[in-house]
């Protein structure tokens, strides 16, 4: 298990953290010293002592006044530095924990965004919770200690007040925050879902005259969320009011006790004003505790990510990658995506010999993509074996497996970077000529000429259509040029003539290369060495195009339907 919550990262930064904490505490202490020495100066001066008796206090007032701001500045700088480091460490760890494939790979983009948002919690933990709490603690101890010297009974009253404001009330707000967030989070998710429906489903809603109903559903979700938010803000207002009350009544009690004990005017004034100011860093603890519950929940979620076992077990001592032209033997392979689910692959056997091209066809959900995932060692087989030149894939490091077998996978991604860098991630050493060649063979050259090699793609940049994305992914696969090339539906979301031309090119370019091609277009498959028809996770038919067309079954049906409609 990886600790990705950044707490170990903080340990490396102990020095900086100590600096931030001590500056923060020093700033608060200077504030306390300033008001204390000023109160002493004024009440003592009223007793008309010799000027020399006041000189220390005068120096104190000036010194505290000057240093307070400087300390505060130091605290903020050091605090943010530590926080940014903690966040960077957390992100790096989260990323490392995500590198091995896991069940979370199936999760949606929203969950990923939330995970990324959660890494902000490391920053908040420090800047909004830990640093203020330390400063408050030091201030409270200093004020109570001073009180103990002047008037122990008053110090006890102050201690009680500070405990209420700094411990009891924050405990209350933390409990309230836990309760409310448990109710508000689903209401917020509900609103987000309704809004997403309204925007993403705009065409469907307009076409079916259902926009008004969708708008009403949004309004209802908003009203439910609003009611909960109002109740939460009421709970927070109660906490704030209790804080004000505690501060006022504590000062009052201190003055009352001092008055009753004849402590003297100087001591009374110093005690009263120090008590008043001592609450300043303590009162924000209520809000900090509220934030802390959110932070802790985020950190817990991140820890769960680190604790999730990877989908594929890496061998303790990876075997060396077998030399020579690759032979892949799949024997009786069974893969299940989860307990209780039907097997995605149910006893598939298949051999890829060097230079041999095999096509996988079959209806959607037959297990074609799962077979590619098993070859790329992204899923763990339940039983059966995949061997590369006689070595079981399970004995190889999964990165090594993907160095041999990779290519065009399902759901390729466009990064927010230049077109060039989007390609080069598949071939970091490739020169311009190789890039141009890969793009040409993926039939992307015209688009690249129009767009330009250094144009930003992705969310903030130029949008990429489905067909362009598919060809970009194919260009990556061709550029990467692995010993065993895997291609998952390379002609998907292309229009008919482009798809035909691309498949023809592809079958031409892969001649004599070890290739596994997943496709639902049968045209051109006369040229491959073997066609395997998968249905319901098992091999239903296998053979050459000629053999399969002559045998009743899925392939022949599909071929006839394609031939019929295409007028061939």
């Amino acid at each position: 298990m990886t600790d990705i919550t950044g707490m170990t990262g903080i340990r490396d930064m102990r020095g900086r953290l100590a600096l931030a904490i001590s500056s923060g505490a020093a700033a608060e202490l200077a504030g306390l010293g300033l008001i204390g020495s000023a109160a002493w100066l004024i009440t003592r001066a009223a007793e008309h002592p010799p000027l020399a008796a006041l000189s220390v206090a005068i120096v104190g007032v000036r010194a505290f006044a000057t240093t307070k701001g400087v300390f505060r500045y130091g605290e903020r700088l050091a605090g943010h530095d530590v926080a940014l480091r903690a966040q960077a460490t957390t992100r790096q760890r989260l990323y490392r924990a995500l590198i091995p494939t896991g069940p979370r790979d199936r999760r949606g983009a929203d969950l990923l965004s939330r995970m990324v948002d959660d890494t902000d919690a490391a920053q908040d933990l420090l800047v909004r919770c830990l640093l203020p709490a330390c400063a408050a603690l030091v201030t409270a101890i200093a004020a109570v200690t001073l009180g103990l010297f002047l008037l122990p009974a008053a110090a006890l009253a102050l201690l009680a007040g500070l405990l209420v404001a700094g411990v009891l009330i924050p405990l209350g707000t933390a409990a309230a925050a836990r309760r409310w967030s448990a109710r508000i989070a689903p209401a917020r998710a509900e609103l987000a879902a309704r809004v997403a429906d309204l925007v993403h489903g705009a065409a469907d809603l307009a076409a079916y005259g259902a926009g008004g109903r969708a708008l009403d559903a949004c309004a209802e979700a908003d009203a439910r969320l609003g009611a909960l938010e109002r109740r939460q803000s009421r709970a927070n207002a109660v906490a704030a009011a209790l804080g004000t009350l505690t501060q006022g009544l504590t000062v009052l009690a201190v003055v009352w006790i001092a008055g009753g004990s004849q402590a003297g005017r100087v001591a009374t004034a110093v005690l009263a004003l120090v008590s008043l100011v001592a609450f300043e860093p303590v009162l924000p603890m209520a809000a900090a505790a509220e934030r802390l519950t959110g932070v802790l929940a985020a950190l817990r979620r991140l820890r769960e990510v680190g604790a999730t076992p990877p989908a594929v077990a890496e061998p303790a001592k990876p075997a060396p990658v077998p030399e020579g032209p690759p032979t892949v033997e799949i024997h009786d392979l069974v893969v299940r995506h989860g307990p209780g689910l039907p097997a995605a692959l149910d006893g598939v056997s298949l051999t890829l010999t060097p230079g041999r091209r095999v096509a996988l066809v079959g209806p959607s959900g037959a297990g074609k993509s799962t077979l590619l995932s098993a070859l790329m060692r992204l899923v763990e087989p339940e039983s059966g074996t995949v061997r590369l030149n006689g070595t079981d894939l399970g004995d190889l490091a999964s990165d090594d497996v993907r160095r041999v077998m990779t290519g065009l996978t399902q759901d390729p991604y466009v990064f927010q970077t230049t077109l060039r860098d989007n390609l080069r991630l598949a071939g970091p050493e490739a020169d311009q000529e190789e890039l141009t060649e890969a793009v040409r063979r993926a039939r992307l050259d015209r688009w690249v000429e129009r767009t330009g090699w250094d144009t930003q793609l992705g969310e903030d940049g130029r949008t990429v259509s489905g067909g362009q994305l598919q060809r970009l992914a194919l260009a990556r696969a061709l550029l990467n040029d692995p010993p065993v090339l895997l291609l998952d539906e390379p002609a998907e979301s292309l229009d008919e003539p482009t798809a035909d031309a691309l498949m023809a090119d592809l079958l031409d370019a892969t001649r004599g290369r070890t290739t596994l091609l997943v496709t639902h277009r049968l045209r051109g498959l006369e040229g491959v060495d073997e066609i395997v028809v998968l249905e319901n996770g098992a091999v239903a038919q296998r053979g050459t195009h000629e053999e399969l067309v002559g045998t009743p079954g899925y392939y022949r049906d599909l071929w006839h339907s394609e031939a019929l409609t295409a007028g061939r």
Partner: protein
Amino acid sequence: MHKDLLRLIRGERAVRRHLAVCLAAAVLAGLLVLVQAEVLSGVLSGRFAPAALAVLALVVGVRALLGLVQGVAAGRTSTGVKTALRHRLLSRLRDLGPADLASRRSGELVTLAGRGLDALDPYLSGYLPAAAVAAVVPLAVLVRLFVADLTSAVIVLVTLPLIPLFGALVGMRTKEVTERQWRALARLGGHFLDVVRGLPTLRAFGRARYQAEVIGRVAQEHREATMRTLRVAFLSSLVLELAASLSLALVAVPVGLRLLSGSMELPTALLVLLLAPEAYLPLRTMGNKFHAAMEGVAAADEAFAVLDAQGRGTAVQDVPASPARSGAPEIRLENVTVRYPGRDEAALDDVSLTIAPGERVALVGESGAGKSTLLHLLLGFVAPDSGRVLIDGVALTGDDAWRARLAFVPQRPHLFATSVADNIRLGFPEATLDDVRRAAKAAHADEFVTALPEGYETALGERGANLSAGQRQRVALARAFCRPGTDLLLLDEPTARLDGRSEAAIVAATGELAEGRTAVIVAHRPAMIDLADRVIRLAEGRVVSAELIGESR
């Protein structure tokens, strides 16, 4: 205050009242601090009897109560404003229409109308009350100080403006740098998310581990740049802090010396000591809340930008489906040209064509040829810039009464986060479960829907069951079957991502759905084209050929 927000609040009576209560409570509580200082200094100097502590207790109690009122009213203000703004925003999004929405970044709009508006909370419930207090309380403190002691009042009066002055000076110097840095921060978050999302691709090409180092390097560079900025940006808070604490020293030391010489009384001296910090505190509080408040302002700006934006889409009002129809319509386009703003080439360029009642037309052509625009035109999502569209010889209204005659299946139908049954009865909410099931059967969807965990009541959407592309299309077809009284069928590449057998099911269902209706089908695949009586080929916004299906073979 934000101009547009103010206008919004003025228009909402309840919100206006809550905001007024919130601000009044905040200001009153601020003024009570003066009373508290008065009583406390009186008691500490011995001018008031200890019994005056009862008054102090009362003041503290009232302050706490006002704080409570302020908090509750602030919560009501913010939810009220958010609800009002959200409602306008969503109504506006709906009115813009699908064609206009498609040209925007829809993900950002969803975030803005949802979580994005929460950024208003710190502005409305934190910054605004603090600003009101800052406008009133320092002045009140100054007036009281002038009455109590002229010298101290002058010191405060001179130093007080330094805070906003220095704040503005430092702010101006750092504003641009700081803003750039915040944008960089947002980009950094974006970069990280980008890498995490693209992880499967990185993994496939053995680049996943390499990126971990890149993440670390980018974060470190960013931190160094941020810290350089913060060193300057935090100067403003240093100035604030210094001005406040030094002024206290500037007041306290002379007051002490004057007490010593007997030219000042203790009660006045203590009052000055207690009051002087209260002049600075509201300004500092406001300053501290400034940054979070600006995020709220940015969210408000974004929301009002959407509200004020010019949309070309026609307003969309819902009219319930009415079954009485004149039968399958004839569609005639006369020299129709459609242009999208910001594009040179017309999406449809002088297109004329006639589709006979009950005819099935397949639209083919490369992407960007204008096929979808033609469908959007018939749906009334876009209006022609020139030329006209005639339905049975009458100009197309493109309103909901017209759309009630349509059965539309988009290329990627949206499944709503509700039950399968509700998804199917989208265009006919009154449909019974039997109607829904009949429609699903006709769309070849009944079999897989029944196999779902809760059948027709299974929830769909992001948190619901996952359907394959073919199954989604069949739910959308069932939607079309479920709507009574439709006589024009519009389909946008319904089999683009499907396998042979899924395709066969969709093609069969589409054939049934086209019975007795005029049908316009955007098609890629031969099986779908085969359904048509006529194939119309579009290229670069023009009709390049229109041939009967028999002639093309």
